[in-house]
């Protein structure tokens, strides 16, 4: 007699299996976010309290990392000059996927107090995809932490897809980069 209690498990298609694995991976990824801190501006001063005893980032499984290859999050804290944008793009492209970008402060959003400077770009998401912005000049530490928690929520909801956007709309991003920077990878005499 065939049991009625247990039905034969349905054979999952390859996409479904992949999706299942992806969800499992997402669980690990959101609980262990390693940051590469690109501290170009004043907002970086909010990170020490976030990392040390006051807010203790490590309890969320976050921590600083040394190189882009190891990191999951690229943290842009503060204004980005044209020169640093080149390096940020280079660094972003070196990171291993999936990768997320967090912009700290108002400068990456709209230029902040440097909106009229010839040396500082105004809108980071024109050049690389940004998953989370933390607004404020400068944002206080609670909002920084909140930004990270938001990113974790986004990963859970599968909306943190910046790196896929960068792959799919690569030409658009490259066009913007070219328009603002001329060329991303440049030669300079000190590194020849």
């Amino acid at each position, binding site marked *: 007699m065939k049991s009625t209690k247990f039905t034969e498990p349905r054979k999952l298609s390859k996409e479904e299996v992949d999706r299942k694995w992806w969800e499992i991976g997402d669980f690990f990824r959101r609980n262990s976010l390693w940051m590469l801190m690109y501290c170009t501006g004043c907002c970086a001063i909010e990170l020490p309290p976030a990392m040390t005893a006051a807010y203790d980032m490590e309890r969320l499984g976050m921590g600083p990392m040394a190189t882009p290859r190891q990191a999951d999050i690229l943290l842009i804290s503060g204004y980005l000059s044209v020169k640093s944008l080149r390096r940020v793009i280079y660094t972003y492209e070196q990171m291993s996927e999936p990768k997320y970008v967090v912009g700290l402060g108002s400068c990456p959003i709209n230029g902040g107090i440097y909106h009229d400077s010839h040396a500082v770009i*105004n809108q980071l998401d024109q050049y690389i995809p940004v998953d989370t912005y933390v607004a404020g000049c400068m944002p206080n530490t609670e909002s920084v932490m909140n930004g990270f928690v938001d990113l974790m929520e986004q990963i859970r909801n599968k909306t943190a897809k910046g790196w896929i956007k960068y792959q799919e709309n690569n030409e658009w991003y490259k066009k913007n980069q070219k328009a*603002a920077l*001329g060329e991303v990878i440049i030669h300079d005499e000190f590194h020849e």
Partner: protein
Amino acid sequence: MMNSMSNVEFLKELMNRNFKVIETDVIDKYQVSFVLKQADILQALVTLRNAGWIQMSYLSAIDWPDESKIEMIYIFMNWERPVHVQIRSKIDRKDPVMPSIINIYPGAKYYERECHEFFGVKFPGNPDYEKQLILEMWDDIPPLRKDFDPQAYSDRKFTKREYKEDYLVLSDQNSKKEKREVRKERAESLKGGQKV
């Protein structure tokens, strides 16, 4: 001190004896400024260096578009006689050319390159004053000239975020009015850092 003359006196005497000083400005007993003719500059620097002003602290320029001049500024320091000396000279703005001083002060190499990038001053004598140093792939007039509009450049070059709606203006909120006025009162009671 070997002689009774003060350092500033010594410096003034030195400069006035050798060059035609257009203007002298003693800021305090550690800082003196001289305005010279462009032709005198190199000679003056050699004299100063021989007199002990061996450290070049600064080299830059100021743009004076109304007079159509660019003013070069050199600052030197003497460790025996602690006086900063500023040498200034105005040069033509249309075609700003200033002979390089790297033979007198080799450290001026990168200052001159920076000055060329930001003000467009040419430094014949410095072999690579035209190479890029700080601004990478710059494509406009030198950015620290007064007729350069950074806002326009930024608008042209970098996309701006466009806001579809106006965000809440906090000053219109009634609930916070009291607090705001208390803050304002307190702010007005303060008098520029000096005790009332």
